[in-house]
């Protein structure tokens, strides 16, 4: 009798994502239900939640029973995590650093971390791109943008 194939990290993560999505959907249903159990509030949410629940069970069984399926080749997560973290840091700090300084720092740091060692290019490109974008959007948009050095509106 052959031993069933072991789960790879990718398969475990796949099951984890499926479970997380199911939890998210159930939480949303519960949140909507506690807000109001009136039919008008749940007319779409309840049937969709039920269908997602059934589909998640089907998908779960399918993943368990097809664990020996060929795995796709994927980029290593560790090369993407720093980029995601830098981007998240950029967005989170925007209210304090403003779109001008925040964008300059984000572009310059990204260039530095991705192999650009000519500091004139790192600082020059970051400065030009951030200034142009900040000036263009603050002139085009009808509301003020958070800025640290430039004017918030033109």
């Amino acid at each position: 009798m052959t031993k069933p194939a072991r789960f790879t990290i990718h398969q475990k993560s796949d099951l984890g994502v499926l479970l997380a999505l199911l939890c998210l959907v159930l939480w949303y249903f519960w949140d909507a239900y506690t807000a109001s159990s009136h039919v008008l509030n749940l007319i779409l949410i309840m049937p969709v939640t039920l269908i997602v629940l059934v589909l998640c069970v089907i998908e779960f069984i399918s993943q368990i029973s097809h664990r020996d399926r060929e795995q796709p080749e994927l980029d290593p997560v560790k090369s993407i995590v720093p980029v995601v973290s830098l981007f998240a840091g950029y967005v989170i700090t925007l209210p304090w650093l403003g779109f001008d300084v925040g964008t300059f720092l984000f572009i310059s740091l990204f260039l530095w971390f991705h192999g650009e060692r000519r500091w004139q290019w790192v600082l020059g490109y970051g400065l030009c791109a951030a200034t142009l974008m900040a000036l263009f959007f603050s002139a085009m948009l009808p509301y003020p943008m958070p800025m640290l050095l430039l004017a918030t509106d033109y």
Partner: protein
Amino acid sequence: MVDFEALNSGLSLLFTSFTPWLIVIPGILIGLTFGAIPGLQISMAMAIFLPVTLYMNFMQAMLFLTAIFTGGSFGGSIPAILMNIPGTSSAIATAFDGYPMSRKGEHNIALGIALGSSCIAVIIGYSMLFFLISPISELVLRLGPAEMAAVIIWGITLIASLSGAEVTKGVIAGLIGLLVGTVGFGEAGVARGTMGSVYLLDGIPAIPAMMGMFAASELFKLVNTKYLVADSSARKVSVKVIFASFKRAVRYPWVILRGSFIGVFVGAVPGIGSSVANLLSYITTKRKHKEPESFGKGNPAGVIASEAANSTSEAGSMATLLALGIPGGGATAVMLAAFAMHNITGGPQFIREQTDIVYAIIFANLGQACLLIALGLVFIPLLANIVKVPMNYLIPSVLSLAVFGAFGLTGNMAGPATVMVFAIIGWLFKRFDYSVPAAVIGILLGGMAESNLIYSYQISGAQWSYLLERPITIGIIVLLFVSLMGGKLVNMLSSNVSAQADA
């Protein structure tokens, strides 16, 4: 029926002087620019330039605004092809094959055929509108909330069925998108899923979510890539190839015709038309193609199908606006404001009494399609140079642009935060084969699906028999099941027949 006297009057309005056409060229250029920059919307361009139309007469104002609309409709396909960022929801299907073509170094071909199919489709669409404006408006009047809800669910099911072997995950993604689209205050007057955040009371901003899921997540995947196009010899920008590919679009007459037909009729459905039309055209073309598995990997027919439908959906939405006075989306809503600024009310009376102006608008759009060819052929080669930019410069620039654009759409930090959160979700979805387009369409249409279900429930008095009185709804539901099960049923039947023949 065509009113020839009004037709003559309409043509003389357009062609007795060159002055009306002078504002068309800047209009198309504004539309192209706003469409090509991720985060800037056609409706935003039209709203910004709306005050300018106060100094124009009604005809000139319409020419200017429709020129922005025409330029913007095509402009949205440029970032979809080059960066996998659909500038608008109507360019989602363009990215499916346009972007893989760019990655293969076929960006010149993709842009050329997109321009060719868009221009031809605009001509076909407005020609159809010229003959069919009254029947289309009558058809739109028959669409109630039940039909709208059925069209939305059909659209999501169609896109989920694109997911190949992972149909279950595709449907899960689409349905979760639908739920996400209902976050915030619902019709029942209670807030759902806001986690106490005031930013979420109006719901999750759909376009920033789309930008995050499509563009930012794709850029995360490309961090280890040197250039968008790996082969350095394929990075050349060739006006000759763009022009040749522009002409190549003519080789797909049925794809363009089918896309145009879908675009005009589905595009006329207020609110959802343009988002669903391009997907429907893409999926129909994929199903009918002899190599359906080549779609999503850079098949030019996919780009043509999507562009033909999204360009003609403009004609469909204009039909609804002119004949019924109902704006189908943001762009036509701005046009309705222009109507009001000139003391004109769209609707059956407008069509009856100002038929010459209606014809003039239709013929002006035919002229705009020809001008778009010339302006597009100048504009596209400039933008196509993006493939020569190293990825370590392109990625932070496009991510920043998406953040600026998202702020522009929401007016607060909810936009950039949405891009960030949905970029991570989009990356996870792509990594584990959940359909990103299905989720995005769900987010875009979730709120509308819920509203239409509620209206149907209220109108029907909670009676299922109401559906039996709605033949169009039944027709759409049948189409939904055919599109989901049709292929499998045919396969099952044909395998049974061959098994019996073998026996």
